[in-house]
């Protein structure tokens, strides 16, 4: 079933088949542009609509209407004429718009006239003591298993953190008869005040009523502790308990599964490795690409759509995907009439400013202390990083030489934001000044055998062979 691209070059290459990528590919292909859609997973849908064409959970009320809405767009992309390749890992994209794709252990290269990155988001690191213990996972991980394999927690389960996904996941687990013993809500009380000026946009958005209904559904069945300010996982080689503090209350509860979540952040690895300029976003506390109104980046020919362009949610991702495709269509056919999607985008983004402020993660859960692990791959602690700063490490990139943080297989995806904020705090600088890891291809590990098997031209050989 694994296939390589049919052509050497395409008008448009879209990377990622979530809401933004599906919308972008469908729009570009329907306009007659040769379009390649590449996706790392076995099925299209991204994270929000994961496994939409294959989920065993076919009773439609389990995953809800917002999930099944995705089926239409998957169908639109499939019938648009776009070439879609699943289980394709893009490991390089450069300024010449050359894309390296690994499919079934073999690499292929294609050129594109325009590239639309729709690589979406990942869950923000949640570095608490014990977060590397077996039995500690992200809420998104549990939701992935639920959607694609119909798996739900059945042992003692604690969900901790904040944000819309946490409540959605809890509701889905309960609908399927799964077990949740406790929800520990880390939303800071002062955030309610900070979010208040943006309440009108939120109340008039679809998030409001859906969110209320979901929270009511969950609270009827699970004890919820609010105002949680401290959180730690413990166990000997396996999670055994979760300790939390809320106000004056401090409690340790037995648990075999802890699901953590404090929002999502753009997945920047491929975009940064392509040399696209990013800036620190003080509201969303993450790196976001510098974009024009159509999602075009600092690298000519590359646009970013969806949550990789800054977190906006699935509805906004669809609009931004279409908008980036419209910009690509214009580039090939300057006289083509394309839709003005500005008003639609504004509508889709309504309520986001409120959610950003309400669910701004507390500092103690972003910037850990002492022997809490920051870099999971290389097992580097917060204190290790402070020690490196004390002897001269200036930023995340220099820190690699001191501690190897960010040099493991995840390439900084699970530690980068923490390292930036930790070093910024330690050095009294802003995250923008401190910067990020310098990312390079391959952005996903490939075997040397695969690299060695890449077809070479005479010019390639001449470039490295002496004499």
């Amino acid at each position, binding site marked *: 079933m694994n296939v390589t691209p049919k052509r050497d070059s395409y008008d448009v290459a879209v990377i990622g088949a979530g809401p933004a990528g599906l919308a972008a590919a469908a729009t570009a292909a329907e306009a007659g542009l040769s379009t390649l859609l590449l996706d790392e997973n076995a099925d299209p849908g991204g994270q929000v609509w994961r496994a939409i064409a294959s989920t*065993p959970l076919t009773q439609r009320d389990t995953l809800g209407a917002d999930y099944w809405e995705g089926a239409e767009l998957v169908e639109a992309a499939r019938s648009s004429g776009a070439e879609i390749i699943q289980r394709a890992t893009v490991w390089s994209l450069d300024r010449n718009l050359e894309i390296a794709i690994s499919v079934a252990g073999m690499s292929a290269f294609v050129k594109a006239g325009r590239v639309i990155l729709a690589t979406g988001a990942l869950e923000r690191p949640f570095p608490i003591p014990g977060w590397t213990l077996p039995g500690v996972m992200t809420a*998104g*991980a549990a939701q992935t298993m639920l959607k694609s394999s119909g*798996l739900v927690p059945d042992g003692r389960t604690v969900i901790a953190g904040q944000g819309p996904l946490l409540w959605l996941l809890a509701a889905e687990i309960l609908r399927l*008869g799964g077990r949740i013993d406790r929800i520990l809500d880390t939303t800071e009380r002062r955030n309610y005040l900070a979010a208040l000026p943006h309440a009108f946009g939120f109340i008039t958005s679809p998030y409001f009523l859906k969110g209320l209904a979901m929270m009511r559904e969950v609270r009827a069945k699970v004890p919820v502790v609010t105002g949680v300010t401290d959180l730690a996982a413990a166990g000997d080689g396996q999670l055994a308990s979760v300790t939390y503090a809320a106000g004056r209350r401090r409690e340790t509860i037995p648990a075999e599964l802890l699901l953590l979540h404090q929002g999502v952040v753009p997945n920047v690895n491929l975009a940064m490795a392509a040399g696209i300029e990013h800036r620190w976003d003080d509201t969303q506390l993450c790196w976001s690409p510098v974009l024009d109104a159509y999602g075009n980046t600092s690298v000519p020919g590359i646009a970013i759509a969806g949550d990789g362009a800054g977190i906006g949610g699935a509805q906004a991702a669809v609009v931004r995907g279409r908008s980036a495709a419209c910009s690509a269509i214009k580039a090939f056919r300057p006289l083509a009439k394309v839709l003005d999607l500005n008003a639609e985008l504004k509508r889709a983004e309504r309520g986001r400013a409120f959610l950003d402020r309400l669910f701004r993660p507390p500092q103690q859960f972003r910037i850990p202390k002492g022997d809490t692990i920051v870099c999971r791959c290389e097992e580097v602690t917060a204190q290790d990083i402070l020690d490196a700063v004390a002897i001269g490490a200036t930023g995340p990139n220099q820190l690699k030489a001191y501690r190897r943080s960010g040099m493991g297989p995840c390439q900084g995806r699970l530690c980068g934001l923490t390292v930036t904020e930790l070093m910024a705090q330690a050095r009294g600088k802003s995250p923008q000044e401190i910067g990020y890891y310098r990312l390079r291809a391959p952005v996903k590990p490939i075997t040397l055998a695969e690299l060695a098997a890449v077809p070479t031209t005479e010019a390639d050989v001449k470039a490295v062979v002496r004499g």
Partner: protein
Amino acid sequence: MFKRSDQDNRPSVQIFVDGAAVAAREGDTVSAALLASGRDVRRATAVSGAPRLPYCMMGVCFDCLVTIDGVGNRQGCLVPVAEGMQIEIQKGKREISR
């Protein structure tokens, strides 16, 4: 830790985990099948030997690294199971031979 939903009636797929037969379902990823198996499928890290299980299940954390059909360090959360697939749980550093 996890149980399967009653709604799930996908056909069964047999895989082997360190030689032992495990019943997975068609469409499971290797990591999902391992977590659903009820077996001890903790790997040991190459750095300190600390035990780990998958963390993100979406291809970004690399805590699901596993040897699949003889190829080491594959992301188990991105690879669907196939009949007869041989899975080995990685313990510590890789051997030079593979």
